[in-house]
Structure formats: C-alpha cells, structure tokens
C-alpha cells in the first residue's frame, strides 16, 4: 500500500476536524477525497503531509510510519502536495520556481558552493535541463522567463503543479487542482492528471467538481463532518444514499 491512514483524529479548541478516519491508497491509482465544505479534507492532507499533527492515529507510507514527521522529511520520501490557495514563489520566474522545486534532486551544500564551483556548474546544468522538461510537460514553455506573480490564474496553477512534479513525487497530493477554472481548463487538468498517472505516480486528490472526480478516479473517499462515510469506486459512491444526504443536507450541490 502506498498510503495507509489509520484512525486519524484531529481535535482542536473543541472542534473535531477529523474523527477516526481510516483508508488506504493503492499504488499507481488516482484516489479522490470529496465531501461538503468544512468536512475535513484539507485537514486530512495537512496531517498526511506533516503540516499538522493528528491528535490520534497513524499515517504509513509504504509501510513506514510517518505520523508527525516534518513536511520536508515527508517530501523527501516522495509525498508532495499542492495547496488549496494558489501557492507559488511570487518574486521568482517560472524557471526559478521549478528549479526551487528540484531542490531534492541537487546535492550541493555550502562547502561545495564555496569551494567546488565546477560541481556547482555541472549540477546547475543538469537541474536546468530537468526544469525545462517539467515546464514543457505542464505546457508553460512559452512563459519560462516570466515572473510567477504576473501569470494568469490558470497558468499559476499549472506552475504549482510543475513545482510539485519537480520534487519527483511517488505520491502526489493535489488540493483542489481545478478550483476556479473554466470547463475547458478543467479538461486540461484532467488530461494532465491522466498523464501524471501514466508516469507511474500515484495521485490523491481533493476536489469539488464531481464530473472531474468521477471521470478520472479509480476510487473515491467521502468525508462528512470529519468522518469517512463512503469508500469505493465512483459509481457506487455516487449512488450511496448517505453521500447524497450529506451533500443535499449541507446545501452544497453535486455537479451531476
């Protein structure tokens, strides 16, 4: 199992964001986590990737317990996430953004930076080539030298994805990758996720757009008020009465 969450519980200040959530994510699959607003989806992401500590419960990645590890350590294991709010390095160019994402692929430290310029040059060449490859993969080749803050919303989200991919994830966690996008942009995102899966990367995503979710997922998990209420293939989940109730009851509507 690529990812195994057991009994995850997160309580703070009297609020229970997650209660006894357990699930597994199989390698090479696309798993989606859905649920009404406030159901605890981003909290689950935060706990898995080390940005938040669970009050109880464990997370295992390929058998190894990673609960409570700091985010950069978890990233080093190949678990890379994106964020709900667009997250890039605003003052840097697209290229510099992706080069920063390639941090783990480099080896140069202070000593080498100061004393072994030859090694630094070689590494920079290697990383720049890799950065270009990733930039082209997400389709931002034309904007290589532009500042991230000047990009359109859709391009910024693509850059986000590029930075995450640069970190060479084995498991990629995408937090609402299609939010705020037009229908055609969403199709592009879905295609991109498909191509990512083809590369052998396991994808775990949080999304609101049902059509997108049902179209690309192998498996769907549903959270409501911090509890897991459904776990299965898309068709079954869509028909699950409790899921329907959760969405209709909370006022959010599922795009059929």
């Amino acid at each position, binding site marked *: 199992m690529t990812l195994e969450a057991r009994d995850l519980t*997160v309580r703070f*200040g009297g609020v229970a964001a997650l209660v006894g959530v357990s699930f597994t994510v199989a390698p090479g699959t696309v798993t989606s986590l859905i649920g009404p607003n406030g159901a605890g989806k981003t909290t689950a992401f935060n706990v898995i990737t080390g940005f*938040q500590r669970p009050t109880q419960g464990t997370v295992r990645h390929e058998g190894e317990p990673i609960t409570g590890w700091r985010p950069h350590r978890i990233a080093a294991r190949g678990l890379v996430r994106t964020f709900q709010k667009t997250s890039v390095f605003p003052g840097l160019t697209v290229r510099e953004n992706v080069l920063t994402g390639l941090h783990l692929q480099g080896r140069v430290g202070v000593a080498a930076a100061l004393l072994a310029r030859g090694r630094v040059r070689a590494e920079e060449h290697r990383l720049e080539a890799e950065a270009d490859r990733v930039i082209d993969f997400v389709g931002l080749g034309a904007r290589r030298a532009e500042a991230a803050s000047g990009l359109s919303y859709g391009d910024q989200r693509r850059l986000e994805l590029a930075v995450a991919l640069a970190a060479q994830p084995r498991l990629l966690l995408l937090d609402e990758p299609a939010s705020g996008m037009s229908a055609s942009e969403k199709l592009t995102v879905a295609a991109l996720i498909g191509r990512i899966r083809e590369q052998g990367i396991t994808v775990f995503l949080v999304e609101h757009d049902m059509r997108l979710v049902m179209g690309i997922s192998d498996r769907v998990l549903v959270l409501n008020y911090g509890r897991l209420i459904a776990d299965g293939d898309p068709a079954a989940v869509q028909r699950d009465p409790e899921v329907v109730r959760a969405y209709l009851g909370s006022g959010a509507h599922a795009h059929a």
Partner: protein
Amino acid sequence: MDQLLQHLLNGLLLGATYSLLGIGLTLVFGLMNVVNFAHGEFYTLGAYAAFAALMLASVHFFLAIPVAIAAGAAAGAICERVLLRPLRGQSIDTVMLVMIGVWIAMQNAELLGWGGVAKSVPTPFPTQPLVLGPVSVAPLRVFVFVVSGGLILGAHLLLARTRLGRAMRATFQDRETAALMGVSIERIHTVTFAFGAGLAAAAGALLGPVFLLYPSMGDLASLKAFSVVILGGLGNFAGAALGGIVLGVAEELGAGYVSSGYRDAVGFLMIVAVLLLRPSGLFARAERVG
C-alpha cells in the same frame, strides 16, 4: 522575608505601568498587526510632553499627565494617518521597517530638541517613604500605581462598554461585517493606534518622574512593552495586564537577588524564554490551528 515582600511590592507597583505600556502595544500589534517598534518613542514623547508642560507652561503636576496622553494620542493619530494608512496591504515587514524609521527619527528629534543630558522631573510628593509594617514605599510610586490602574480600568471599560470599543472589537474580528454595519474602518484604525500611543505616553509621563528623562529611554520601554505583549499573548488585554505585573516582579527580584546591572536583561530573557517555550503567551488559551 521582608526583603522578598519589598521586592514583590516594588514589582507590583512598577508592573502596573508596564501593563499600561503593554496594553497599548498589544492592541496595535495584536489587532492591527503593526509591529510598532516606535512604541517606546510615544512613551518618551509622553514623558517629555509632561516635562514641558510642567517646566515651560507651569501646568500643575496632575494635569501634566492628561497633556501627555493628548500629545501621544495626537502623534499616534498623525502617524497612522500619514504613514500607516497608505501602506495598508503592504507586507508586515515593510510596515515594520517604516516604524523603525519613525523610531530613529523621533528619538533623534528628541535628542536635538532636549539635548542628551538626563533630566529629573520635580514632583509634589514628599520623598519620605511611607512605612507600612515590614515594607516601605515612596508616595510617588503609589500615585503612579493608582493612576496606572485607573487608566487600565478606563481602557477596559472603553473597550468593553462603549460603542467605540464595540466598533473597535468588531473591526478587528471581522472587518467586512463591521464595514457593512456602518463602522468607519479607517477611523477605527486611527483611533486604535492613537489609543495605543496615548497609553504609552501616559506610561512615560508616569515613569518619567520615577526614573530620569533622557532621549533613548524609549528603547528599553519598547522592549519591555514587547516583553509584556509576548508574555500575555498578542491582542490579549488581560494577558498584557497580568504580563506587566509578572515582568515588574521578575525585574525587581532579578535586580534584588542577582544584580542590578543586569536588571534590564530580565525583560530580554523573558522574551527569549517565552518565544521559545510558549510562543502564544503564558496566559493565552491553548488553541492551535495547523
């Protein structure tokens, strides 16, 4: 034992003014998110304003304090209007650096205006300490304590019971809703900052006669104010009130039992200790969001 009681009493008396200083800053830092490194300069301004009123305008000692508060509040209002309002929305670092600039400018203006020689402020109180059993206390310090306490109470009442106070609390809890309810956000920001500056000026006018007046007196005051704010938790009124007392007592104990030269180090060490061990403050309710 008597020595301990004396230190505790001194700490309490001094601490009340530290609370006053800290409350002003916690409102500005905690609510407006402005890192006001010039807070100590409003303290200095208050001290010198009171001194000027006393010496140049022959104002009665008790009236000098309201003069100081008015001067501080006015300066604060101008500062907010001219410097902070245009920068609203900029990064907190830019605002921080701007306040550092204000700090430097104000202090050196004081230096140019008043000269670097320390001045002592004459008071109408007898220097003979009152003896209350095992402890003794200077009448001036009692006066300072009483006024500080009164001002703290007044500030609390203003925030909790008046319309203005409600508007302030509403603005900093939920700006959009407050605006929709007719609160002038701009005015509240100016008032809050002026309020903080006024409290700092009051502290300066009160402690000026206790210690001496010199242009860089605000540096330590700033740090102690930050110490109190960190102890009590950002934006936490009651926390700042308690934090001031804690700092006052800790300083007196440190000066008494360790060394008076390192007295001011207590404030520094408290900052470091609290930041490292309990960054949300000693008195903050334990709530952590990821």
